[in-house]
């Protein structure tokens, strides 16, 4: 079709687009497309992330990391994926077969569900038909509450997985993760409340919009950010708080008995959780897609998230692991009072 013909079609298209039924259908179609795209992207994210993690680890330890599959080992994650696919899927004979099978899925679904409210950018307009598309699946008015609540659900999968394996190490890992989740979820939510008080809205889109023009929340809520970050590290089970899968004492923790694709699901969950935590940090404290205007918002957003993920990896290969009682006392005796104090002071300043 030539340029002329497309121009000729435009009035017809516009006529169509003014029909409310068509608009509704289009809207539904659009949401569907967005859901599919986001799910696919999130599903494939662990591939580059495992590669990145291993490269970061390698270079921090003055090694090279994966080098052999493809140029600079770039195809290593694919090779790993194929390997995981074809490995034997072992279910221990004394395990609870149903729970054992379903646990990875239970932990995986919530971390994907989180992405329903996460805004990746502002509205963009598709050229020619002047149709506005928002870069988020839905703008819930309780966005941040939803994210925190749903993300917390994924610990059920870990507990069930640990319990169903019928292995003491897995069970201990599961128990540890539940205790950790309970203690740090509080501090995490309280740290978010500071931001919510400043912005006066629970919607993630509003929170980002309020930070436009360098009014990033990290400048107004530094303590909140530190609490958020530490609690976030604990929430996504990463070093220094990765006690549920503490290799030193628990074998591999809650996924000791898992192999093949079910293990891959747990890994996927972990990486996606890391991504969503980084995204949350960027949205709440680093101004989301706001940035100097020479790059489009979505690029800024991606850059910030990648930097945040890099920081998570960087800490992982720098810090040792805390002891379990230290973890608990940091959570309850330090972070929780501090976050309450933070809310109090923020409230006083706002008044």
């Amino acid at each position: 079709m030539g340029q002329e013909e497309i121009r000729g079609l435009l009035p017809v298209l516009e006529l169509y687009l003014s029909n409310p039924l068509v608009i509704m259908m289009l809207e539904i179609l659009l949401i569907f497309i967005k859901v599919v795209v986001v799910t696919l992207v999130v599903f494939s994210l662990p591939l580059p992330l495992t590669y990145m993690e291993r490269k970061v680890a390698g270079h921090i330890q003055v090694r090279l990391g994966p080098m052999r599959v493809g140029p600079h080992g770039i195809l290593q994650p694919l090779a790993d994926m194929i390997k995981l696919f074809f490995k034997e899927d072992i279910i221990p004979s004394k395990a609870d077969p149903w729970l054992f099978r379903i646990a990875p899925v239970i932990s995986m679904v919530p971390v994907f569900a989180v992405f329903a409210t996460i805004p990746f950018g502002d509205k963009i307009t598709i050229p020619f038909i002047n149709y506005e598309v928002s870069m988020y699946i839905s703008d819930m008015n309780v966005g941040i509450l939803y994210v925190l609540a749903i993300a917390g659900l994924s610990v059920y999968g870990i507990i069930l997985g640990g319990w169903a394996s019928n292995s003491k190490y897995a069970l201990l890992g599961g128990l540890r993760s539940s205790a950790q989740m309970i203690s740090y979820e509080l501090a995490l939510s309280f740290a978010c409340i500071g931001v919510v008080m400043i912005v006066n809205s629970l919607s993630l889109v509003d929170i980002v919009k309020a930070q436009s023009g360098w009014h990033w929340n990290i400048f107004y809520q530094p303590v909140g950010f530190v609490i958020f970050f530490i609690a976030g590290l604990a929430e996504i089970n990463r070093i220094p708080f990765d006690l549920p899968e503490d290799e030193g004492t628990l074998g591999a923790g809650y996924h000791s008995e898992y192999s093949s694709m079910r293990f891959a699901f747990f890994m996927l969950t972990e990486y996606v959780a890391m991504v969503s935590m980084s995204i949350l940090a960027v949205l709440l404290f680093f101004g989301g897609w706001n940035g100097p205007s020479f790059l489009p918002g979505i690029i800024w957003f991606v850059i910030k998230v990648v930097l945040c993920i890099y920081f998570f990896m960087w800490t992982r290969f720098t810090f040792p692991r805390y002891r379990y009682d230290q973890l608990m006392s940091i959570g309850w005796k330090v972070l929780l009072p501090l976050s309450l104090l933070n809310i109090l002071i923020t409230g006083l300043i706002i008044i």
Partner: protein
Amino acid sequence: MNELSTDNHKNSSSLSIKDLLKKVFFIDLIQGLFITFNYTFTKTITERYPDDEKWIPYKRFRGLHTLNRNKEGKELCVGCELCQKSCPTQCITVIPMEDKTGKGIADRIAYRWEINLLRCMFCGLCEDACPTEALKLGREYELASFSMQRQIRSKEELIKPQPIPVEFEGGVIVRATLEKGDKEIKVKPDLSVQKRWW
């Protein structure tokens, strides 16, 4: 913040202001982060063996046996069987024969000279026993193979010139290429491109 400290008991009871500030602003943790960050951009010390690089050992290395010739190209081994007798694991077989054609330095050469690498422990006693300095433990160390037969190496192979010249000092990493044969896998070094990370 007391619980965070790993100090001994003497210090933890009296936490000085300086220590407290250090903990509140995560000074130690930030220092740690900077150390690892610096390491991220230092040169890596990985030796990419067998794909790209290979370690060439020093001259004193005791690898696969080599049988040598003198400057005129005559076989130094006179088939005296001393190496066979001195070997603690009895893995050398020497069958001498008379030879008047001048292949060797005397009128006696080895008809068969075989070494069973499956038993050899590379102690080097055979090398010490050899009166004519024919036998030397060389620098070849890639001895894995697809068949047991390959582990018995005979004179015909050992007397060939070595891939790494005897004069080469060694103790370096050189550029190399991986070569997969049907009998074994070898990494061929290219001595002209050397690299030291230290």
